[in-house]
């Protein structure tokens, strides 16, 4: 239940790992950015992380995982995000697709699909939203019809980040009329005949989002994820993973770092107070997020708490942009100016993706018994 999570203390093993990640990052060649888990696709970087054992960290060794705790994983991913590293390629697969297959998939699916994720070679897209089903996810209409030993999928998914780079899309489909019990998940091979991936450009013109049209796509019976009719339950559990992590408050961390660099010389009251206020927010929200990670580690249900942290965290990400904008006068062509512009243009997405602020409010209110 909300607010009842005990404090989490990072184990020493996790802190030791932090040093390893920092040393690794210092040797890598990348331009630190904001919102890199959406927009910085770098398959080579993902593979190098995998070589270090930093993908599939919490998964069993027999599926290519490394049997670490959720808190150790928390430390690794927060270091990557804070550094603005290019983590988009593997992000969804490592965060939610792999865990979903491990939890709901067949033994054959686990053995075949999970190890390549842990090697940083297989990427997944999220097939949830549709043109007419956004916040009201349970209204999805993409249809799966039995066809011989398998299923035939017809419909369209939208906002599928990175689908044009991905190998699979875990797709929520309607298999029956009941609003919730009529939903099921399928693992769709994005190279299958009938799959068409069209870009939906962001307002910047960047291509991360896609529309994925499924036109009579055949999905073999062994690519059903979990149980037919359990799609809603499975998706809810997946969303807790999707919402609870540090990417929900660190998307603009590099902008804050740049503000601190700016403050090194511009020691005026406004800049310092802005920096202090934002740091207080970041430090405090991270403490709350750590509690959720600790609860995940114990296998507790964190749906409500994850929604709460995501709401606070994503509004904070936007606050960083706004506060920095007000506080500084960035030099033309400076790194600060570049990051700020990029962050302003990406800002609206923070409180939309993975469940809008409004939907999170409903989940939290329900958790509070309202």
């Amino acid at each position, binding site marked *: 239940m909300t607010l009842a999570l005990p404090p989490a203390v990072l184990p020493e093993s996790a802190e030791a790992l932090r040093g390893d990640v920092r040393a690794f990052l210092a040797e890598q060649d990348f331009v630190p950015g904001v919102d890199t888990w959406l927009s910085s696709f770098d398959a080579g970087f993902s593979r190098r992380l995998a070589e270090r054992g930093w993908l599939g960290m919490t998964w069993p060794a027999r599926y290519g995982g490394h049997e670490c705790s959720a808190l150790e994983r928390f430390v690794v991913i927060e270091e990557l995000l804070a550094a603005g590293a290019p983590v988009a390629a593997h992000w969804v697969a490592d965060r939610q697709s792999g865990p979903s297959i491990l939890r709901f998939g067949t033994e054959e699916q686990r053995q075949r699909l999970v190890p390549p994720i842990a090697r940083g070679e297989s990427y997944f897209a999220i097939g949830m939203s549709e043109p007419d089903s956004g916040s009201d996810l349970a209204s999805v209409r993409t249809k799966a019809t039995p066809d011989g030993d398998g299923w035939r999928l017809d419909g369209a998914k939208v906002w599928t980040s990175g689908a044009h780079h991905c190998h699979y899309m875990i797709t929520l489909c309607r298999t029956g009329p009941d609003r919730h019990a009529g939903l099921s998940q399928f693992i769709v091979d994005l190279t299958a005949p009938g799959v068409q991936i069209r870009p939906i450009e962001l307002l910047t013109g960047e291509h991360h989002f896609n529309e994925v049209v499924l036109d009579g796509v055949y999905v073999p019976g062994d690519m059903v994820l979990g149980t037919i009719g359990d799609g809603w339950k499975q998706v809810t559990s997946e969303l807790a993973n999707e919402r609870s992590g540090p990417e929900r408050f660190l998307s603009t961390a590099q902008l804050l770092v740049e503000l601190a660099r700016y403050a090194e010389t511009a020691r005026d*009251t406004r800049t310092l107070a802005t920096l202090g206020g934002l740091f207080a927010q970041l430090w405090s929200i991270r403490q709350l997020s750590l509690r959720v990670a600790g609860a995940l580690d114990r296998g507790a249900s964190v749906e409500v708490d994850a929604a709460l942290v995501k709401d606070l965290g994503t509004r904070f990400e936007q606050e960083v942009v706004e506060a920095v904008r007000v506080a500084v006068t960035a030099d033309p062509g400076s790194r600060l100016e570049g990051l700020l512009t990029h962050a302003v243009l990406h800002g609206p997405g923070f409180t939309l993706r993975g469940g809008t602020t409004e939907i999170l409010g409903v989940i939290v*209110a329900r958790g509070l018994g309202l």
Partner: protein
Amino acid sequence: MSAERELLETSLTELLTDRCTPEVVAAADGSWDPGLWSHLDRAGLTAVGVPEEAGGSGGGLLDAALVARCCAAFAAPVPIAPTLLVAPWLREAAGLAHRPGPAAVAGTAAVTAARDAGGWVLAGYARRVAWGRCAESVLVLVGTPEGLALADVADGAVEPAADAAGEPSDTVVFDGVRVPDERVRPVTTRLLTALRMRQALATTVMLAGALDTVLDLTRRYAGERVQFGRPISAFQLVKRQVAQLAGEVAVAGAAADAAVREVAAAPADGDPLPAVLAARVRAARSATAATAIAHQVHGAIGFTREHRLQHFTRRLWTWRDAHDGEGALQEELGRLLAERGGDRLWTTVTRAGV
């Protein structure tokens, strides 16, 4: 939480539910409740965190903070925070002997001390001394010919006053008060910084406690109050408000806990502590947001003297500005971060005390 601490929380909550009722809180408005203090004292709760060999009840900072947070959650009209969280630590840091009983701390005062046979004689006064009238001893900063010192004073004339929360905030006049030598110790500016950090920590813990209750009251009211034929919690806009309130309360609570742990692990040595400043700033922000939401959801009834809510919102409004303004704290934290530089910003987040 350890089993002992859970037990402490349960027994304290029981005691406060019985002895710190809304009527007790309302009756003590502008003053305090010596009866409640006696109950807490008999249960050993007024010396939690003080070592047994010094006459205390044992336990550590985490236990003391838990007691202070619970008392704040009941708006308990007793000087528990200075007595548990500030005075014992300050005495030890300054090299003064432990002293039992309710304590007050006057960190900024216009008081001087002059040598006298076998001790010191004080002159001057301290204003806005929280819980001054209830204290058996006041730790007061004094100017001596040799520099700043801390005097542990058991005497002084009190001119009562109250703050906006309705808690004692008295003027204590020390003219002619004699203090023996062993109750006066020189202090450094580093100790004063450490004192500010300690007071900020205590304030943060108190804010977190009062916030817990504001959420509880607001959630309940939204579920009970019926308008347009249904509870107001059925309205999306109200749901959203209460959900935001829950977030504000949760983040302040997590920050307060983490700051307490940080200080318990690495006691203040006179440097400003990013963790404490961050938690203090964030808790003040939560107080502002939470009081606004709580009053909006409660409507006009919450704005009256008879409703319980005001005992918590008045405390939050007062405590958020205790000792230092929010802007000044933000700036102090920002200056610290700017001095460390951008390259160390993230390492400060992950290891805020180092």
